[in-house]
């Protein structure tokens, strides 16, 4: 009985230790956060699209230059969206202001997409041809389907 209990304890320890070591070794390549906790998504980009340090520097510069532009688009889009939402709540019937609000929201949305696409093409130009193709595929999937899950499911 005593030997059996010792064996049972060993089984638990061996199972847990082998699981822990193997899981942590397998996950070691995954960067959840960068050392300083910022630009985690760019650290992922670097690994996913196999960027060299020189390519990464260029992408980082483009990303930091694009960030305020993106934030401005975001702010304008939210304002246009709220205007439209308020109008829809206030008015019980169709009004020309609604038409204007819809057009304004669509115009900003189009600007956003154009600006994002330009940034994406600039980033893709920094990558190797194969990685550039994959990156643009992800961007197009986001623009067309609104989510890149299909691309990652396909690569599994």
């Amino acid at each position: 009985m005593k030997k059996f209990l010792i064996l049972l304890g060993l089984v638990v320890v061996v199972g847990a230790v082998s699981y822990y070591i193997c899981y942590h070794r397998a996950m070691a390549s995954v960067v959840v956060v960068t050392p300083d906790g910022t630009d985690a998504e760019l650290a992922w980009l670097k690994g996913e699209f196999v960027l060299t340090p020189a390519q990464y520097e260029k992408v980082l510069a483009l990303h930091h230059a694009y960030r305020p532009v993106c934030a401005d688009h975001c702010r304008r889009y939210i304002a246009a969206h709220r205007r439209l939402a308020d109008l829809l709540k206030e008015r019980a019937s169709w009004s020309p202001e609604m038409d204007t609000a819809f057009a304004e929201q669509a115009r900003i949305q189009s600007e956003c997409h154009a600006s994002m696409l330009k940034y994406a093409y600039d980033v893709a130009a920094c990558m190797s041809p194969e990685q550039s193709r994959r990156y643009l595929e992800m961007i197009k999937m986001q623009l067309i389907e609104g989510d890149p899950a299909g691309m990652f499911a396909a690569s599994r």
Partner: protein
Amino acid sequence: MNKNQDSKLREVLGTWEVNPRPAPHFKAAVWQRIAVQEARATTGIWSTLRDWLFVQLPKPAYAAALLAVTAITGVTVANTRAERAREQYRLDSARHYLASIDPMAMTASASRALR
């Protein structure tokens, strides 16, 4: 004479029937023996299992095999889970990255956060 006696004997033997009376409580005794055997068989399984678990399994050969199987199972389960976690991480990171460059996605996540 002998022939004559043989035929008579054969005739007598041919008509001879033995009808012994069964022993008292014969059926009950049979059923009791069956029950005892069945009980012994059940106890046998448990005692064999107990013997195997507590006596045979802790022997070095079986114990080593069990530990090896445990280690292999641990490694396999860890690899499978890590693979899934890595795939999920890739997808989540792609979404985070796209949310950081797509004003529409940023707006959608901001709206979700406000709700």
